[in-house]
């Protein structure tokens, strides 16, 4: 079972490369934000898997919980920060 967990953890690490591409080459800031959010939600599961590998789940589950909170707060803060930038690309069409 430990071997299977290691395989899943390595697979998740490889999977993080795909949103990282979007993070690096995204055309707008919001594309990069989506990439960061996706990487963060994979990291929560990865932390739990690391906890099982080191047999310290009781400690790592707290870290994963705090990381989920931090991920949420980071996305909210960043998107609120870019809220006021009118005309990132084109003219506004909501009005």
């Amino acid at each position: 079972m430990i071997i299977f967990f290691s395989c899943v953890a390595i697979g998740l690490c490889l999977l993080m490369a795909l949103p990282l591409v979007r993070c690096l080459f995204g055309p707008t800031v919001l594309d990069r934000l989506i990439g960061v959010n996706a990487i963060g939600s994979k990291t929560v599961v990865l932390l739990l898997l690391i906890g099982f590998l080191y047999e310290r789940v009781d400690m790592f589950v707290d870290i994963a919980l705090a990381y989920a909170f931090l991920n949420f707060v980071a996305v909210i803060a960043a998107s609120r920060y870019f809220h006021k930038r009118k005309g990132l690309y084109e003219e506004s069409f909501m009005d």
Partner: protein
Amino acid sequence: MDILVIICLVLGFLFFLGGAVGILRMPDFYSSLHPAGKLDTLGILAMVMGLALYNLHHFSLEAVLVSIKMFLIVFFVFLSSPTATHSIVDAGMRAGLRPWTQKKGKE
């Protein structure tokens, strides 16, 4: 029991893979939010459920508490993920980004 855990983990991995591929393949960020925001949420649900089941192998009070904490993570993600998605969409709308549509793509 182990088989159930493996099924959960593989299913969650599949959802994560779909989310990651979808972020790369979708034409603009409004439509790439669909796989990013929700396939990831369901991936977390499946994987953490599997891990919580595996954690209950050695039944004790501490194991039950750790499993409850894992469900707390799932509950929190289910509350926060729509909020984060909505926040990003709102920022894009106020910045005036026009959504990609089928007609515009064919031009």
